[in-house]
């Protein structure tokens, strides 16, 4: 799940299903290209459906830059575990990693599109979340 560090906002995709996370990441790569640091994670620690904090932390670490990281999640536990992961980051990074209230696939593509143009973390989050509005 490595990506070139372009100085653009990083995108992390968190799904209960690793296949969904990976598939959403494939769509981002195809539609947006490689200008955006991108990582994905899915499944519980035993490889079943679910999410896990360690996997989310590792994904955030992969795409981290001072530009920040937008996290796209699917259902309940993915969000709670992602928020937990953000709180476990070093203090100076916490404010630069945000969990977006957006659908995981569409949100990831839109967030990555916004990021690829060099937009700020706030703009990336807003674009993803406007999909719901």
């Amino acid at each position, binding site marked *: 799940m490595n990506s070139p560090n372009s100085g653009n906002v990083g995108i992390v995709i968190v799904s209960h299903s690793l296949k969904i996370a990976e598939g959403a990441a494939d769509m981002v790569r195809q539609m947006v290209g490689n200008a955006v640091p991108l990582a994905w994670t899915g499944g*519980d*620690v*035993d490889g*079943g*459906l*679910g*999410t*896990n*904090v*360690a996997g989310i932390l590792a994904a955030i670490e992969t795409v981290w830059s001072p530009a920040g990281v937008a996290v796209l999640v699917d*259902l*309940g*536990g993915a*969000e*709670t*575990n992602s*928020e*937990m992961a953000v709180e476990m980051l070093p203090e100076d990074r916490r404010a630069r990693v945000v969990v977006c209230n957006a659908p995981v696939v569409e949100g990831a593509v839109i967030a990555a599109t916004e990021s690829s143009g060099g937009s700020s973390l706030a703009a990336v989050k807003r674009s993803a979340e406007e999909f719901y509005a």
Partner: protein
Amino acid sequence: MTTGTLTNLLNLTPAESLAALRAFAESVIQHADELTSLDQAIGDGDHGLNMRRGFEAVLATLPGLADKSLPEMLKSIGMTLVMKVGGASGPLVGTFFMEFGKAIPEHPTRADIVAATDKAINAVKARGRSEAGQKTLLDVLVPVQAVLAGGGDAGAIATEAAQAADRTTPMLAIRGRASFLGERSIGHMDPGSRSASLLIVAAVKALEFEARS
């Protein structure tokens, strides 16, 4: 006022603390199938599996916790649950233990336990952006904490835990996966409330046993 089992928490030897924690973790593991069936009714059916995985991981860490202080033990258990449980219950139950451990002194009084559980419950509310009345584990934690704060003894605490879980059955789920079901969530006990109740009853029993021995 009966201080009941809680004061025994102050006087446990490390070996006794470990035995109590072992019994505590095992009670959730033993009820994993029941938790899963409850969750199959109104959730995604993984609560028993998730909790069993988390508490099996806790059991595995216990030997390494033997020489730790009570706050350190609690924080470590919380972190293990956060990292291993997997579902939303990992961060929720794990946060409870982590914050309880942070707030409690090494040799707590009953008032310290009341204050620490209050802080831990507030942290769970913040983590889940939830309040009591939404068919979640808070519907057990909040009333049980009220009994604790009101001076209730071990029996009263255990009884309230079981009854509070039962009272979630007619509730409408507003937070968590069950809320997707809307009114169909009515008539089923909340799995998270059931596991919280099991943990509380097991904690009370484990400490009571230590008191008699």
